[in-house]
Structures are given as C-alpha cells and as structure tokens.
C-alpha cells in the first residue's frame, strides 16, 4: 500500500517521457526528406511567402516542400545564433548584411555560394554585403535593397500650397509652411527607439554631403575622418529638425510614427522604402515621395540604396542539393517580379529588368537612374570593434535630434570610438 501511489505516478511519467521521445525521433526522421526550412526575421512577409512565392516555386518543382519559419525580428539574431550552435537551424538562412553574416560564414555556419549558377545575375555592388573582405567568396544570395527618402501626404502639401523640395533650403521652407498652417505635424520622426534617427535621419540625408560611395570608401581607407566637414554638416541639419517633429517626439516610438502618418495627422514621413507597403494597407490618402534634397548649389545627388536582405545556405543542412535549386530560382526574374510587387519598397538586387506597379515604389526606384547609389556607411567593416559604431551612431543621432548633443561633440565621439580599434583611422 505504501509505495503504490507514487510508484504508479513515477511509472506513468517515465512511459510518457519515453513515448514523447520516440514520437519526436520518428517525426524528425520523416520531416527531413525533401523539406526545406527558411529562417527569417520577416514576420511581415509570412503571408506573401505562403500564398505567392512558395506556390510559384512549386509549379516548377512540386517535390520540394518549403516552410517559411520566421522569428520575431528582435530575437532573430540571438535565436538564430543559438539554433546554429545547437544544430537546430533551418536549411536556408535569411542573411543580415555584412558582418553578422560574415561571422556566420567564418564560423562555418554558411556555405560558400560561388558555384551557384544564379550568382552571375548580381553585380559586385549587390554582392558586396555578402562577400568576404578579400572579395573571393560570396556566402549569401542578395535578395533586396531598401531605398531611403521622404514620403508625404499629398493632401497636406496641397493644403499649404507646397511642392516637392529640390534643395535642403526648400525643405525647411516647406516645413515652416506646414508648421504655420498647424493642421499637420510637419515631419515624422521619433527618437525613442533611436534607430530611426540614424537610419532615416543620418543615413538618409548624409550621402548628399559625403558624396555616397566616395565618402564611405574614404572612411574605410582612413583618408576621411568622421570629424570632417560632411559629417558635421549632416548632424547640423539633423539638429534643425526638432521644432518640426511632433510634440514629445522623444517618447515617440516607431509604431507611433507609422500610426501618426497613416492616420493622416502628419505631412512628411522620413522613410525607408519598406514603409510603402505599411502605408498602402493602412493609409487612406494619396502619397507621394521625394528623395533627400541636396544642399543648394550641389548638382549631383546621392541616395541611400542599402543592400538589406540576402539568403544563404546552412552549411550543416541535410537538403543542400534541394536548397541550391531553390536559391537558383531566387536569382531569376520570376522571383524578382513577384517579390518586388508583393512587397513594394523592397527592390530586388538581381540584374533582371522588372516593372514595379506601385507608383510610390516606382518613384523610389526611379531615383537609381537620377542619383548615385550608396549603402549605409557604418555597415561594412567599420562596426567590428568596441565601441560598436552603429550603436554609437544610433545613440548620438538621437541625442543630436533631441538637442542634447552638439554636432561637433557627436562626430568627436564617433571618431574617437572608431579610432580606438580601427587601424586606418588611428
């Protein structure tokens, strides 16, 4: 009598555990035959992958099953690294640009893709975000880039009789007009999440000042410093934005910014092109877009056309052959066409000529022909040390816009941090 109660409980627990383990092993074995799993941080795209992209691929390759398994963006890097360390990561891995993926390749998590037929469809610039420093091995297939600019509410501009500004001076005149009118918040940018200040602020208008790739490569070579005039000038402009942002913008988060604009309460939105699809589905007004205006008197213009997403092959994948078939398909114009039109604002990096149907997205894309493209200058090589340049950039950009730090101090802090560990800048 004494031992029976707890004995049965322990026994049943043991059997349950054994059963569970067996079932798990069985399903694991079944699951692996011809199934590809894609790791991604793009929760937003799940619907599109399941309803458009995967079915299109399966028309030509019905025997390869694909599962798009995104992780919430905040946790993606941490969770992916943990899964790779534990051997449970998917076959295809969506690649962050530059060092995050380079590190995965160096650790042997990503396979080299030089031999992929489709790789020939991409330019060197497109591949630069996913190629080793010596330029010899590419380890992710470029997928899409995002372009920066300003999206505006056409009704708002009509109300104040404004037009798209062609210079920075015209930009401020327009903002003043909107502010005087009082109906709309002139410019939408919040500093609470910090990244917008760097990405839609500094990296948006900056290329016009540091002349795009010229400046970026000069920083890498060490022939320019972050305390040089172009960078101080960029921060000086950002420091002027405060009065035109919504009240309490210091506590305005990214979702707040999106809601503020899509609810029609604001005129101009400092944008990354990805937001086009957000506003299409949520807004109810006509939108236009203009590129970051250069300072008056400057004839050439530069846009931030940033290589943002790639896709790579897990070196430990058991379905590498099938995965390569899929990667090849992703380099075709068929994929580019579907992707560009399902996600207006993400621009495929392949050389394929495609038509983007969304007019605002088409506007963004047209800037490639008018201006010179560049990628964000903190992403290649320069964010490898401690202090981390990108984190620092977020921090000081937010402080400059908040009025808590002068442009000079901002650039001094950035340069000091970079020079501490980066030899060419010492």
């Amino acid at each position: 009598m004494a031992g029976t109660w707890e004995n049965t409980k322990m026994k049943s627990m043991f059997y349950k555990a054994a059963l569970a383990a067996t079932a798990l092993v069985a399903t694991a074995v079944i699951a692996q035959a011809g199934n590809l799993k894609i790791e991604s941080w793009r929760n937003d795209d799940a619907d599109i992958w399941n309803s458009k992209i995967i079915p299109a691929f399966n028309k030509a390759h019905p025997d390869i099953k694909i599962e798009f398994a995104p992780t919430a963006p905040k946790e993606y890097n941490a969770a992916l690294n943990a899964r790779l360390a534990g051997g449970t990561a998917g076959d295809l891995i969506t690649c962050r640009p530059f060092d995050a993926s380079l590190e995965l390749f160096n650790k042997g998590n990503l396979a080299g893709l030089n031999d992929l037929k489709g790789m020939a469809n991409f330019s060197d610039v497109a591949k630069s975000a996913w190629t080793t420093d010596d330029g010899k091995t590419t380890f992710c297939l470029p997928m899409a880039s995002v372009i920066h600019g300003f999206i505006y509410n056409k009704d708002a501009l009509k109300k104040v009789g404004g037009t798209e500004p062609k210079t920075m001076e015209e930009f401020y005149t327009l903002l003043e007009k909107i502010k005087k009118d009082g109906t709309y918040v002139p410019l939408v940018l919040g500093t609470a999440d910090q990244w917008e200040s760097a990405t839609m602020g500094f990296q948006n208008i900056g290329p016009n000042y540091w002349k795009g790739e010229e400046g970026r490569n000069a920083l890498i070579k060490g022939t320019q410093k972050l305390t040089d005039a172009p960078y101080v000038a960029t921060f000086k402009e950002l420091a002027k934005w405060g009065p035109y942002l919504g009240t309490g913008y210091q506590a305005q988060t990214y979702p707040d910014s999106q809601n503020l604009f899509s609810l029609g309460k604001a005129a101009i939105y400092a944008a990354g092109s990805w937001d086009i699809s957000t506003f299409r589905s949520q807004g109810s007004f006509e939108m236009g877009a203009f590129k970051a205006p250069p300072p008056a008197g400057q004839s050439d213009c530069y846009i931030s056309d940033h290589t943002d997403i790639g896709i790579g092959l897990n070196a430990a994948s058991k379905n590498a052959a099938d995965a390569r078939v899929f990667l090849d398909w992703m380099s075709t114009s068929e994929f580019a066409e579907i992707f560009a039109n399902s996600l207006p604002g993400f621009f495929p990096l392949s050389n394929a000529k495609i038509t983007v149907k969304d007019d605002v997205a088409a506007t963004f894309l047209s800037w490639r022909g008018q201006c010179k493209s560049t990628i964000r200058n903190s992403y290649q090589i320069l964010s490898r040390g401690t202090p981390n340049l990108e984190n620092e950039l977020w921090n000081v950009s937010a402080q400059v816009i908040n009025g808590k730090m002068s442009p000079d101090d901002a650039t001094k802090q950035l340069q000091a941090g970079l020079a501490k560990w980066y030899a060419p800048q010492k």
Partner: protein
Amino acid sequence: MTELTQYALSSKSGFGRLALLVFFLGPAVVIYAAFSVYPLIATMALASFTTDQAGAYHFAGIDNFILLLTDKDWRGPFWNALGNNALFFIIHMLVQNPIGIAIAGLLSLPALKFRATYRTLIFMPTMLSVVIIGFAWNLILSPLWGVSEGFLKFLGLGSLFKPWLGLEGSALITIGLISVWQFVGIPLMLIYAALLNIPEELVDAARIDGLSHFRIFFHVKLPLIMPTIGLVSILTFVGNFNAFDLVYAIKGALAGPNFSTDLLGTFFYRTFFGNQLQLGSPTMGATVATAMFLIILMGVCIYLFLIQRRLERHSF
C-alpha cells in the same frame, strides 16, 4: 530532529538510509543540477576564455574581467548599468515596498468589506506578460495619443506633462514605477499573510488600551512582521538586479535614451547575444554574467550576515 526521527533513521541500514535520501532528494537535485546549475557553470566558465575570428576558444584567465573593469569602453557601460540597477532598487524599496505594506495594512483591518476583490484587482498586474505591460504603458504615457496628458489636463495639471519615457532624466524612474506597478502584488501578498498571522489577542489588548488602528499598526504589527519585510527586501534586491524583461520590452536592448535605462540585464544581453551590427561575444557576455552573479551574491551575503541575524523571529 526528534528522538523518534533519529531512531527511525538510525534503525535503518546505511543503505536503506541512503536510498531514502536519494528517493526524496534525487529528482529535484538531478533536474536542478542538470538543467540549471551545470548550464550556468558551463556558461560562466566561458568568462575565462577568448575567441578568435574562426570561433576557436583560447584560455585567458582573468583577462576578460580586467578588461571589463579597466577599459574605458567596457567599464563605462558596466558602472552605468550598475548605477542604474542601484537606482532601480532604491525606487522599489522606497515606493513598491511601502505601498505593499500600507495596502496590506489596510486589507488586514478587521471587518473590511470587499477584501477579496481588492486583493484580486491589485494583484492582477503581477500576472501579466511584459508585452501587455509595455504596450499599455507606452500607450498611456505617449505624447501622441493623449491619454495621460488628457488626464493631467483634467486635473488642471496639464503643464506637468512631459514625454517621460524619452527623456534621460526621467526614463529610468518611469520604467521603475511601471515595474513597481507590475510587482507590488508580491510584497503585498507576503506581508498581508504575515499580518494575518498576528494573534487576535495582541491586537485586542492594544485596542483595549485605547490605541487607534494607526498606532497599532506602527507600534504593534510592524515590529512583528520585520522578518517578512526583510525577506521581501532581499527578494526585491535579487529581482531588481536580475531585471531585464521590462526594459527590453519598452526600450529594446540598447536601453535608451543614451543608456539611461541600461541595466546589468540589458548590458549582458547586448554583450552575449549581440545587438544589430554588434556581434555577440559569449566570452565577454559570460564575464558580465559572472560579475552580476558575484554582485548579487555579495548583496545576499551582506543581508544574511548583517541584517538577518538581528531580526527576531516570533513564533506564535
């Protein structure tokens, strides 16, 4: 141990005794050791290694700790986070625990109607996930949607409104108060129970002597529940110095504005797992984790040896 217990144990053979102990302690110790202690030790052991480009580990002794404490770019964030944790802890000790004690005192008043309802409502925030808490308070405090600003205007205090979560001077305090809102239920619950344990006779005797409820609380009840208050304090300390979820949910891993909300927990997360372009460093992350553990251990020891001894335990 009573004589009978001693007898019960000693009457068994050595093996029988061992079997008994293994039976009772076995499952707990095995699961705990395998899935809690061993991983912790394995992780903290990383603190004495460094990695190279290809990911191989090299033994480095206490180099990482020296780096953490002396290098400008490591010690700055470390001491900043530690200072923020201390402030976070002080806010909880000054706001959360007194409120918990006060409300527990009110709830323990005799013949109080709706006691259970109040208890349930005030305890609810403790059960929520940080996603809800983050969303709700972001919405309430946001300068864009007018909730708290409208409320202050209603009270005629509209000019006091500021975007508190976005300003360096107030962000940490604001998050601290949100955390107080979330967790006040725990000290409330523990102290309420301790108050209920006080025998009726003591309270009645004091009433007969003519003391008001107020004075009874301060002069009779409070001294008797000191051990519980001590327990609550140490739990608050451990909880605060391990805090991470709320700041992460509201401010992200970079804990702005300008690291004013950075706690040791977020500093650890950034260091270990990386953030945006910053790559994770398991070795430095383990160093931070070990430092955190030592800090908490120190605090607990100080409490145990200096304070716990002086608290009298009253048994009834």
